[in-house]
């Protein structure tokens, strides 16, 4: 294929009836404030781990909502729980608790990364 200097993402569809809701359900049950997330990305802009790596907490929370859990484990392990996102979030979401719940949820449901 010709190299235009940019790439297009593959088109994809989400089948809402087949979404894996285990993790998001677990998080919302224990930290309902996560419902209020508007994906503004403030947390990601300030993130300490994002400053050191390509970690993107906003993207992760979107993936979790879509039930795409193949790469969550390695990614979430980059967070250092520093709490900057907590101070920045306009919705007052307990982001640190969300992160701990993701970690715990992955353990409870035995969700592992897939290659």
């Amino acid at each position, binding site marked *: 294929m010709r190299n235009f200097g940019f790439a297009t993402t593959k088109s994809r569809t989400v089948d809402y009836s087949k979404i894996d809701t285990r993790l998001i359900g677990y998080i919302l049950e*224990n*930290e309902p*404030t996560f419902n209020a997330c508007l994906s503004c990305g403030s947390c990601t802009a*300030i993130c*300490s781990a994002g*400053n*050191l*790596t390509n970690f993107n907490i906003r993207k992760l929370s979107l993936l979790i909502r879509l039930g795409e859990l193949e790469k969550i484990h390695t990614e979430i*392990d*980059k*967070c*250092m*729980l*520093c*709490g*900057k996102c*907590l*101070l*920045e979030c306009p919705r*007052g979401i*307990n982001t*640190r*608790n969300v992160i*701990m719940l993701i*970690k*715990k949820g*992955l*353990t409870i449901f035995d969700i592992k990364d897939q290659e």
Partner: protein
Amino acid sequence: MENYFVLPFTVGTVILFSILLVKYALWISKLSKIDKLRIVQSIFSRRTLSAIKECFMECLIHRRIFKRNILLGYMHMSLAFGWFLLIVVGHIEWVVYSGTFVTYPWNSIFFQYFVHESFPGEKIMANIMDFLLLFVLSGVLLAYFKRINSRMYGIKKTTKLKPRDRMTMCALWLIFPLRLLAEGATASFYHNGGFLTNSVGRFFEWIQISHTTEEILWWSYSISLGVFFVGLPWSRYMHIFTEVLLIGIRSTGVKLKKEFNSYSRIQVYSCSRCGICIDVCQMHISNISNNQSVYILKNIRDQNLTDRKLFNCLLCGRCEQACPVNINLNDLRISQRIRATKEYNSDYAFLKTLPVEQPVEDKTPEVIYFAGCMTHMTPGIKKSVLKVLEKANVNYQFMDKDKGACCGRPLMLAGQYEAAKKLIAHNREKILESGASTLLVSCPICYKVFKDDYELGQISIKHHSEYFLELVEQGKITLKKSDKSIVYHDPCELGRGCGVYEPPRNLLKMTGNLQSIQQEKVNSLCCSGSLGDLCLSMSDRNTIKAETLKVLLNQNPDMLATACPLCKKTFVKGVDIQVKDIAEIVAESMEN
């Protein structure tokens, strides 16, 4: 034989001490080798003497509870010290009567039942015993009232009870009134006993009670003792003996470990459920009343601690500071968090792949400055620290100028101990590599973990308030005094956490008029922003913050000062007046 009534008491006593012996032996045997060695080595040292003194002052007199509230202290003292004296003097009474030192315990405990004839010193001994009984009874009476109205005792909330606890408590409450009645019944026939039991005896004589009633009363007294003794190891009263064990072990220098072990268990069982920690906890302001330390300890005993309760706590340390038993409540809670999150600790593999930054100049810095995540959130503080360093001509290296890892304390607070160790190792290497002799930090959260967990050897760790004060003392910077009135808020991690109270105050006295407030230093309130709490909602945080601000701003100061970027960030969103970190104040007050 007519003496069968001593059986419930005797059986109870044997069961009690057997259980205690087995439990304590098990706990001590599970301590680490080093801790056991410590105990063996200090058994015959002066520490033992001071431990005995502490046991006397705390387990019997309850000095620390007295300091909190006289009525509550008196209640605890009359029950513990009074009962103790009843046993000791009761034995002396037996010795005076029989001339022998050793006897079966029931002979002195049920003395008045067995001894009817008179002997030299009888009246004095009987009156002393009656006085002591009255002393204990006054405590029991206060305990009844406390259940009804705990506010009188400086306590707004009292602990909720389980049936098991309730049964043991009722047995305890019955012991002394029954003793009075039983001794009174005997006195009605033989006219023995002192001023109190004899008066009861005269009344019984007047209503003409029978010997059967006397027997029944002695049986009841003995049964209540037996029930209390058997129930004791399974109830909160286990603290009576465990606190003695705790004081003994603590005096040998044994410390709480990160992970929950049998010393932690001894601490858990030493809690008397006095309720003092419930009252000092600010969570009440947001109507949260199930997560206070006393409940956590109880849940650990009953093995039904939920994550919600465990993680909903500011770890402000107010309860630990107030606890009369000196239980390490913060670290104990953290050890439970470590246990709860053990299965999912990160290894931060990416740290190894980070590019190594080369120092711009190759001379060794004198100071290495670690700003930390929170200072990076408050650029004003960061700029001020740098300004002061430049002004004082300090040769420093900025460790986390662009790319820095977190200090690890937030992970510690969340119980992610293994993960925190990875960050600590990473940062520690950088600090040691720099060759600096001083590590400067501008955030109490980082300061705490550097002090407690980094093992930096010769490197001295300084909070910016301490370091700036040194700069002033060395004449490297001079400060201008203004006439602004300032109130200082003690950050939890800096004050109760690390014991730094004076340096920030000394600096503030040089730059303005420092006002003192009601709840400060060890008694200071939490700003509510703490990273120790993982699930407190923003609106609850704001409610708590508003109350803290009320106390701080009571005298309408011109400025609110603090020494923590997180406290500052928390307060800024709640007040009209200026909120400044000590670094900003110093930077602005420097003379050119």
